[in-house]
């Protein structure tokens, strides 16, 4: 079973993603900010991470850099309310960029594509 780590500072979003993705058959763990995510990665060993950008403490872009220091191959999907970063060089190290949307179809399609489940 594929494992996904959802990183987001908003509790309702974490809950929504967790439930939706679990329903689709993934094992989901959540982290409320960048530092928690960095602690979780070696313990949980996720197959994919969804990473919010605007978070207190360590933001998504910093977190992305730190994770990439050890995890070169781990698929990371940037997931933000901001559309502007998607062509930004700051997120070049991620594998995909999804603008947050109530309809999770695009996010789920992206995850399946990256995990080669499609």
């Amino acid at each position: 079973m594929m494992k996904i780590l959802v990183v987001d500072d908003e509790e309702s979003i974490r809950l929504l993603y967790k439930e939706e993705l679990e329903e689709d058959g993934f094992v989901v763990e959540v982290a409320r900010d960048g530092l928690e995510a960095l602690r979780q990665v070696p313990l949980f060993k996720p197959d994919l991470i969804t990473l919010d950008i605007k978070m207190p403490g360590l933001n998504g872009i910093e977190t992305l850099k730190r994770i990439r220091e050890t995890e070169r191959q781990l698929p990371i999907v940037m997931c933000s309310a901001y559309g502007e970063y998607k062509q930004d060089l700051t997120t070049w190290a991620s594998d995909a960029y999804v603008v947050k949307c109530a309809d999770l179809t695009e996010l789920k399609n992206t995850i399946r594509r990256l995990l080669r489940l499609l």
Partner: protein
Amino acid sequence: MSVHPDGYALLKATIELSASSLPIETKMEKILQCITDGFESDRSLHLRPEAVLKDGFLSRVAERRKLLWVDEATPFQEEALLPEEKDLLCPSFACIPLFDEISFQGIFYIGFSKSRTFSSSDLEVLLLLSKEIGAAIRNDQLHRVAEDHVRRVRQLSTLWELNKALLTTVNFDRIIHMTLTAITIGDGLGFNRAMLFLVNDRGRALEGTMAVGPNSAEEAERIWSALSQRKGNPSELIVQIESSTENHSNLNSLVKAIEVPLEHEQCILSRTVLEGRPFNIRLPFCGEEWVQTRCERGCALSSEVGCYVSEHLSQNPRIYAFATIPLWGKGKVIGVILVDNLYNRNPITEDDIRYLTTFSNQAGLAIENARLYRNLEGVHQELKEAQTLLVYQEKMAALGELSASIAHEIRNPLVSIGGFARRLDRTLFADAPEKRYTQTIMKEVQRLEKILGNILTYTHEEPVALKKLDLREVMEESLSMMSEGLRNGGIQLTKKFSEKVPEVTGDYYQLKQAFFNLISNAYESMNGKGRLSIRIHPLSMNGTSFVKVEVEDTGAGIDPEALHHIFNPFYTTKDDRLGLGLPIIHKIVTVHQGQIEVNNHPGRGVIFSLTFPAQEEKQR
């Protein structure tokens, strides 16, 4: 021995003749004949001042201002005469210089083939007669001067009238039309046709600007007779003509099509500008040889006026006069006016040229001013547009900043609301009454998200990341964003993608957004029932290849009244689709150098066609 003439009778006849209103040549001939008869002389002559040669016998008579006679008592040395003056030599003759207060009017000469003696009364009569001749000449001169003055006063008053008319407007087209009309109407300068060529902005070529004149001799006749019926001064006339007639003549369209490079020395128009002087040409008796040269450029004007003497013209010689004058404006030649008298064949005199030059100097300034004014208006308009754009951009920037910060704050809660509504929706049975509530929440959240996305896209100048793209893949991505909605409704989706589609250089996210907007518009217009057809195929136009993307729906179509405004970002209507969605599509397509086309069939649907230039395949 002397024959004493009847001095009184002779004087009386001479005075009568000199007071008569005959032309001066006839008058002089008759006076001199009278004198010849009266004195029984062989001839009497009036030698004009120009016939008095320098250092000759006659010039000495003129210098001394005294009567000089040769008779039996006063013999004469033949050597005193210049060879040119030899035929004056007679056995007896008298020369009397004609002077008035101002000028020397020549010499009165009377000659006898037989030798005779001049008595003192003969000489007295001759002196009196010479005074009469002088008076006749002076009268004639005064008459001519007076006539000339009258003509000039008339010309000046006409010029004043015409200039007054030119001052009534600063409109460029009106000014030039008035100028040419003034040149061609009988009460104005009275030429048959007038054509205006102006030096273009870069100063390298002359461009035909306007021409005024009848198309045929019959038309000329009709216009002239109509004009002669009209009363009023020239300024009123040309203002009336200008406003009542549109200039659609053949000549005008011919002249407007002419462009002559300024360095072309064979062309009379160019020469007029380059040399800054008028040319007065009379064909076929043309003193200026170069005019006979065929214009190598094959300028259309040569068929209309005699820039060169064509075969036809030399076989059927006819008098044809035309003239060109430079048009001066603020110290430089700004163009050429060409005039001719094609229909009445009147010669063009030097005086006509002077008159035309005086008028055109005024007209040149008026034209130059009008041109400057027109440029000023253009610049002013541009400034106004630039200012409007600036204000618009500032507004958009402010709106962008504001909406971006609000949009981000709203988006997260919307994701939760919409996301959980979906989860809730899936737990309900299809016939549960709560299903309507969850559906409403989902629909409204989707609408809000779309508005947010559009505001952010339209107000935010996102950097364009150009990549080679397969539009079929981009379209599939856009469709995947919509898929849930499409699955739930009764919309039948048909995809028709060509097998080989060239790549397009573009921004993946922008194009995805554009396609998404198109699809969601189509989807919404059909209210959950209908057929959505998407076609992508290559296209070749004028040897360039393009990719065409067509999105066709079977919805209600667009209200024809709204159709003109659908790409205006601030146009709002009850129709939900026409928010920022289409302006964004338009903006994105424009950024990609594409074209957008709308085929609207109200009540039956709409086809949006986007055409993008294809990435050229390298063929080696």
